[in-house]
């Protein structure tokens, strides 16, 4: 009898394990992509490895509702709260249009926008899934100069919200809240060279390089072999010719 009870306990415990394990970090979410929020700048590689997890998951600065910060008080994203980092500042007038990028479409309670403690924008989500794209135009009221805007996506069916911060310079002011001196010292961009957008073809037989625009028919060498481009693209790490026969044909 005792054993039977043990067996029942084991059986009862199993479904709990099954339900708990797959959830993991399954999450997925959203951030402001335009103008480039701090998280979007991290995803662009603009700050190198400084950003921590935000470089991989700009969409996952998730925390309980009601916070006023950039990370959702989520430790893996704490660098987003660091005002001393060289965040790019967006120049704007009093009216600002923002676009969210979602990786999952949670049912939405509402969107809130704050400067300091002042709510400068509110958009109801009607407890529906967001539309694509989700773009809001808000009035920044009487604020001028250098300001930090908190953009908050309040989820309808969880206690959580997603947080995104945008550094602004409103109406060309810039004196009310001078940027930290570190703003002018951007880290060297050697690890993340800017994407080359020119369409000029590299010299035939040149060595393959990331972030280069290749036209169909361009030839490169990589690892001692030659390859011909089959599909126009801008190259990137992971798309080295031997990895992607769809893009490069060995010649």
């Amino acid at each position, binding site marked *: 009898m005792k*054993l*039977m009870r043990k*067996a029942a306990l*084991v*059986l009862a415990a*199993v479904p709990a*394990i*099954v339900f708990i*394990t*797959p*959830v*993991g*970090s*399954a*999450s*997925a979410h*959203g951030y402001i*992509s*335009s103008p*480039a929020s701090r998280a*979007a700048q991290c*995803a*662009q*590689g603009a700050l190198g490895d400084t950003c921590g997890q935000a*470089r*991989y*998951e700009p*969409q*996952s600065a998730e925390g309980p509702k009601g916070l006023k910060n950039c990370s959702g008080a989520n430790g893996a994203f704490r660098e987003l709260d660091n005002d001393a980092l060289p965040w790019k500042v967006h120049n704007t007038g009093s009216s600002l249009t923002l*676009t969210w*990028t979602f*990786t*999952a*479409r*949670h*049912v939405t309670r509402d969107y809130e926008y704050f400067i300091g403690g002042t709510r400068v924008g509110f958009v109801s989500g009607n407890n529906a*899934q967001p539309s*694509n*794209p989700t773009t809001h135009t808000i009035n920044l009221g009487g604020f001028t100069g250098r300001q930090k805007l908190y953009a908050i996506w309040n989820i309808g069916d969880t206690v959580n919200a997603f947080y995104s911060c945008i550094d602004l310079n409103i109406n060309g002011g810039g004196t009310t809240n001078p940027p930290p001196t570190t703003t002018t010292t951007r880290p060297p961009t050697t690890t*993340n060279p*800017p*994407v080359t*957008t020119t*369409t000029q073809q590299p010299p035939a037989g040149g060595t393959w390089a990331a972030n280069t*625009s290749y036209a169909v028919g361009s030839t490169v060498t990589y690892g001692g072999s030659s390859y011909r481009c*089959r*599909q*126009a*693209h*801008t190259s*990137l*790490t*992971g*798309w080295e010719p*031997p990895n*992607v*026969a*769809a*893009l490069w044909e*060995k010649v």
Partner: protein
Amino acid sequence: MKRLVIAVAVLALAGCGGEAVVPEGQGAHGHGASSAAPPVPGASARFNDADVTFVQMMVDHLQLGISLSQVGLAKATSQEAKDLAGAIDVTQREELTMLKSWLKLWDKPEGDGANLHVAHGGQPLLDDKVINEAKDKNGAEFDMNFLNLMTGHQGAGVEMALDEKKDGMNPETTAYAERVIATRQGQIQQMLKIISGP
């Protein structure tokens, strides 16, 4: 009786997080071939549930990405967006062929990707309706919506790959996850630079 309890527990645990091995002789057909890259790199025989779930979810994820790429190829106005759509289309088709062959090797079904995503807490960004609605936009508005959707979709792929890196054990699958992280991050960088300026 005691044995029964243990057997029940073992069976139950094997159902979640166990590992499996394909019988000798069936695995690793992509190995030791020659220096020429095989068209479909094989996966080796040792894998666990996380590997299978990741590959099943990626099959669905890749198909949705291909559908969106097709829309981008047909309607994007900027050459940059069009080229990216074309490159995502062909590379993800290649990945899809590879992943389907792995599932076959492991004797696992392709599964119902959409249900898998829901079971894993996601409400996927893309479905047929969202992809169809994207077709209704034109010009620059189309481009921005397309890039925005693709940025989000590929970002979700990074999340799935990070989970696989943490929980998976099959070396080919975890290596593929690494490549998903690198290539999607690269694509997202390219797209964000178009969306919000360099």
